[in-house]
C-alpha cells in the first residue's frame, strides 16, 4: 500500500525549485566579513548538545537537514530531493547526489542513519530527541535512498525533519573528533567551521565546495557582547554589522536612521498568563472569561512591549501550521464592566476592601512567575496583577528565579492558580503545542498541560490530527480545537514574540526568519 505524496502537496515539485533561486544581481557581491554581536556564547555547536539559540545561530549555517523551512514557514527540500510516503510510519527520501561534508567524505544514506542513531539511541540521547516526537530512526535502502521511520503514524514528521537542529553530521568526523566534535562540527552546509574562542567569538567561513549556490560572505564572526548597551554601541561604531537582541528602546530611532536596517517579523512564541482550570474558582469558565475581559492587552503591548512584540491572536503564533485566528479581541475585548458582570453572574460580590467575595471567600489568586525568562515576563505579570485589582480580583504574585518556577510548573500537583509562561512551537506544527498543552493525559511531568485542561472532544481531535498524514484534514481538526479553546479559555495570551535583528545598511540580502534559530546567512553580503 502506497500513499502518494499528494497528501503532502507541493513538495515533490519544489525539489527543483531550490536550484533556481539565484541571488539578485543588485549589489550582492561576493566577499566580505560579517561581524555579528549577540549576548551569549554557545553551549555547544553540536545539535546533540544544544538546541537553544546561541549555538543554533552558528550551526544552522554549517549543518543541513533533509528538509528545511523557508521564511514563509513552508517545508522545502534540502539534502533530500523528493520523498514518498510508504506507510503511515515510513517515509522514503531520495537524497541529493554528489554532496560532500566539509571533511571531504560523501553525504549518503548511511550518514543520515548515523546521525539519527547517534541522537536517538546515544547515552544520553540528543537534546533534540525530545523535540522529535515519534521519530524512531532511519533505514538505509541504498546509498542515496533512506527510509525515515516513526514509532506511530506521525503527522508532523516533515516539519520535524525540517527543524533547525536536524542537521546531518559527518560520521567520519564524529568518530575521529570524539567529544571535540561539539566544538568544531562538520556538516554539508554553505559555511564551515574555523575557530571558537570561548566567550569571545566563533568564526565560520564560506564552504567553496558547497553543492548549491555558494555563500557570498567570506567569513562570519559571531562575537559575544553580553550587555545590551554595548551591543548597540558596537553597531553604531561599525565594530559590528549585525546585532541580535537589539535594545527595544532604541528601535524607533534606528528605524528612522538610514545607516541601519531593522529586520523584523512575527515569531513563533506566545507568552501567556495561564490558569489552573482545575482549581476553584478558576474551574468556573465565567471567572476565567471575566479575567480575560479585565486585561487591557493593547496597553501592555504599547507601553510595556513598546513595539517589540505583536498581539497574541490565540494560543498559537500565526506562522505555525494549523494556526487559526481565535479573534480574541472580538471575543474578549478589554471591558471592566463586562468582567464585573461575569463575576457577579458567577456569584461574586464586592467585599469590604474592594476584593470580590463569595461565601466568605475572597477572590484571591496565587500566581507564579519568573523575571527575565521571556521578554518582559515579570513586567506583564505585574501589570496584569494591577489590572485584576481594578475588577476586584487580588493576585498574589510570587516572582521566583526560573529554576524554581520551572520545577513547580513541571510538578504534579501544581499549587498555584496562575503562571506566566512562554511556549514556542519548535517544529512549527500545531501538534507540538495543542497536543502537549491541552490533551488531558498530558499533565506534567508527562506533557505541558499545566492548566489541567480536560475536554474529551479536544483529546479526540488532537489525537486524530497527530496520527493523520493528510495535512488538509489536520488543519481542519486543529481549527476546531482552537474554536473550542477560544470558548473555554485557560490562558490569557498576552503577546506573540517578534524576531528583530538590526544590521548596518551595508548588509545586503539578509532575510529574517520567524524561527529565531534559523539565522540564514548564505545570501547575505556586506558592501564595503
Amino acid at each position, binding site marked *: 500500500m502506497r500513499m502518494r505524496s499528494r497528501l503532502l502537496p507541493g513538495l515533490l515539485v519544489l525539489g527543483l525549485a531550490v536550484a533556481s533561486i539565484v541571488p539578485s544581481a543588485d549589489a550582492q557581491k561576493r566577499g566580505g566579513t560579517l561581524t555579528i554581536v549577540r549576548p551569549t556564547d554557545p553551549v555547544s555547536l553540536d545539535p546533540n548538545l544544544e538546541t537553544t539559540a546561541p549555538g543554533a545561530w552558528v550551526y544552522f549555517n554549517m549543518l543541513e537537514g533533509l528538509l528545511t523551512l523557508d521564511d514563509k514557514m513552508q517545508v522545502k527540500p534540502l539534502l533530500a530531493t523528493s520523498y514518498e510516503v510508504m506507510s503511515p510510519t515510513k517515509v522514503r527520501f531520495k537524497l541529493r547526489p554528489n554532496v560532500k561534508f566539509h571533511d571531504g567524505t560523501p553525504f549518503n544514506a548511511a550518514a543520515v542513519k548515523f546521525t539519527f542513531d547517534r541522537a536517538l539511541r546515544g547515552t544520553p540521547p540528543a537534546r533534540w530527541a525530545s523535540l522529535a516526537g515519534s521519530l524512531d530512526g532511519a533505514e538505509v535502502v541504498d546509498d542515496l535512498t533512506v527510509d525515515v521511520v516513526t514509532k506511530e503514524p506521525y503527522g508532523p514528521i516533515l516539519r520535524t525533519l525540517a527543524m533547525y537542529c536536524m542537521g546531518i553530521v559527518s560520521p567520519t568526523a564524529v568518530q575521529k573528533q570524539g567529544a571535540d566534535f561539539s566544538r568544531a562540527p562538520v556538516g554539508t552546509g554553505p559555511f564551515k567551521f574555523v575557530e571558537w574562542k570561548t566567550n569571545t567569538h566563533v568564526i565560520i567561513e564560506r564552504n567553496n565546495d558547497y553543492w548549491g549556490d555558494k555563500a557570498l560572505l567570506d567569513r562570519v564572526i559571531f562575537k559575544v557582547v553580553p550587555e545590551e548597551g554595548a551591543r548597540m*554601541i558596537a553597531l553604531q561604531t561599525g565594530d559590528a554589522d549585525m546585532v541580535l537582541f537589539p535594545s527595544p528602546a532604541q528601535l524607533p530611532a534606528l528605524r528612522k536612521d538610514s545607516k541601519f536596517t531593522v529586520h523584523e517579523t512575527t515569531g513563533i512564541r506566545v507568552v501567556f498568563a495561564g490558569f489552573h482550570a482545575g482549581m476553584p474558582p478558576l474551574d468556573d469558565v465565567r471567572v476565567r472569561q471575566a479575567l480575560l475581559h479585565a486585561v487591557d492587552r493593547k496597553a501592555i503591548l504599547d507601553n510595556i512591549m513598546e513595539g517589540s512584540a505583536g498581539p497574541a491572536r490565540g494560543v498559537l503564533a500565526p506562522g505555525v501550521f494549523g494556526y487559526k485566528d481565535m479573534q480574541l479581541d472580538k471575543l474578549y475585548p478589554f471591558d471592566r464592566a463586562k468582567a464585573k458582570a461575569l463575576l457577579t453572574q458567577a456569584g461574586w460580590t464586592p467585599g469590604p476592601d474592594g476584593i470580590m467575595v463569595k461565601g466568605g471567600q475572597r477572590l484571591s489568586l496565587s500566581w507564579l512567575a519568573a523575571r527575565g525568562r521571556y521578554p518582559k515576563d515579570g513586567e506583564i505579570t505585574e501589570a496584569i496583577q494591577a489590572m485584576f485589582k481594578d475588577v476586584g480580583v487580588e493576585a498574589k504574585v510570587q516572582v521566583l528565579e526560573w*529554576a524554581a518556577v*520551572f*520545577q513547580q510548573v513541571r510538578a504534579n500537583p501544581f499549587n498555584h492558580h496562575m503562571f506566566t509562561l512562554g511556549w514556542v512551537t519548535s517544529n512549527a506544527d500545531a501538534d507540538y503545542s495543542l497536543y502537549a498543552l491541552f490533551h488531558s493525559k498530558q499533565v506534567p511531568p*508527562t506533557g505541558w498541560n499545566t492548566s489541567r485542561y480536560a475536554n474529551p472532544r479536544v483529546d479526540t481531535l488532537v489525537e486524530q490530527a497527530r496520527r493523520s498524514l493528510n495535512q488538509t484534514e489536520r488543519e481542519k481538526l486543529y481549527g476546531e480545537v482552537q474554536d473550542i479553546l477560544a470558548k473555554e479559555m485557560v490562558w490569557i495570551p498576552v503577546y506573540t514574540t517578534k524576531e528583530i535583528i538590526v544590521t548596518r545598511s551595508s548588509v545586503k540580502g539578509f532575510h529574517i526568519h520567524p524561527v529565531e534559530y534559523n539565522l540564514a546567512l548564505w545570501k547575505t553580503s556586506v558592501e564595503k
Partner: protein
Amino acid sequence: MLTFVVRRLLLAIPVLLGVVFVVMLTIDLLPGDAVTLMLGEHATKDAVAKLREHLGLDKPFAVRYLDYVARVARGDLGRSIQQNRPVAAELADAWPATLELTVAALLIAAAFGIAAGVASAVWPNSLFDALARLGSLFGLSMPIFWTGLVLIVIFSLWLNWLPVGGAGSLSHLVLPAVTLALPSVAMLARMTRSAVLDVLREDYVRTARAKGVGEILVLARHALRNAFIPIVTLLGLQSGQLMGGAVLTETVFAWPGLGRLMVKAIFARDYVLLQGAVLVFALAFVIINLLVDLSYGLLDPRVARQG
C-alpha cells in the same frame, strides 16, 4: 617560615572541604535541578531521567560528595553540567577578569584611601579632613550597584567618555574598578586616619619631633611604618570583600568574571561549576590571609619571631 606557610595551608584543607560541603548541600536543597533546566521546556520525562543518570546526578548526596572530593584531590575539577566543559577551563576564562578587576580596585583603594587617611591625620580637623571624612561616609553608604549605574549615566551617557560595559581595553576597566573600589577607599581612609593619629600621639614620635626631626621624616620613618600593620590587615580583609562585591559590579558592567559565572551557576543549579568557582574564591581568601600574616613579619620583625 616555610613550616609556618605549610602549616597554614594544611589548616586550610578542612575549611575548603567544609566550603565544598556547604555549596553542594545548598545546591541540593535549592528548588530546581540542573538537568530539567538544561533540557528546557520541551524535554520529555524520559530524556531528563537518562541525562540525570548519565551525569551521575541520581546517586545519593554522600556518594557525590566523596566522588567530588576524590576527584579534586587528583586535581580534576570535573566538567560543568550545563556546558559540559572542564570546570578548570571555565575558571581559566573567568578568573583573570576578576583578578584584573579586583587588583585594579585594590590599587585604587590603597592609593586614594591611604593618601586621604594620612592627609586627614596630619591636618586633623582641617577642611580637607572634614571633607574626606564626610566623603568616606558617603562612600560607605552608597550601594555599589547603584554607584555603578550613576557613573554610567555620568561618564557614558552624559559625557560619553567611557564605554557602558564589557571588557577589553583599559577604558572598560575604569568604571567598574572605581565603582568596586569606592567603599574600600572610604574604609581605608578612615582606618588610616585613626591609625596614623594613634601613632602620632605615641611617645617615641613626640620624642623624635622634640629632637627636631623633620615632620616628613617623622611621618615616613615612624608613623607610617607602625600604622601599616592595621592598614595591611584591613587591605587583606578588603580584598575578600572586593571579590564578594565583584558579583554586583560584574553584573552591572557586564564584566566577564568569576562573580557572574557564580551567579549563573547558581541560577542554573550547576553545582560542579559553582564548587569550582567557590573553591577558587576560598583559596584566594586563604592565600590573602596568609600573605597578610607574612607581611606582618616584614613590617615588624617581632611578629616573625613569634610566628
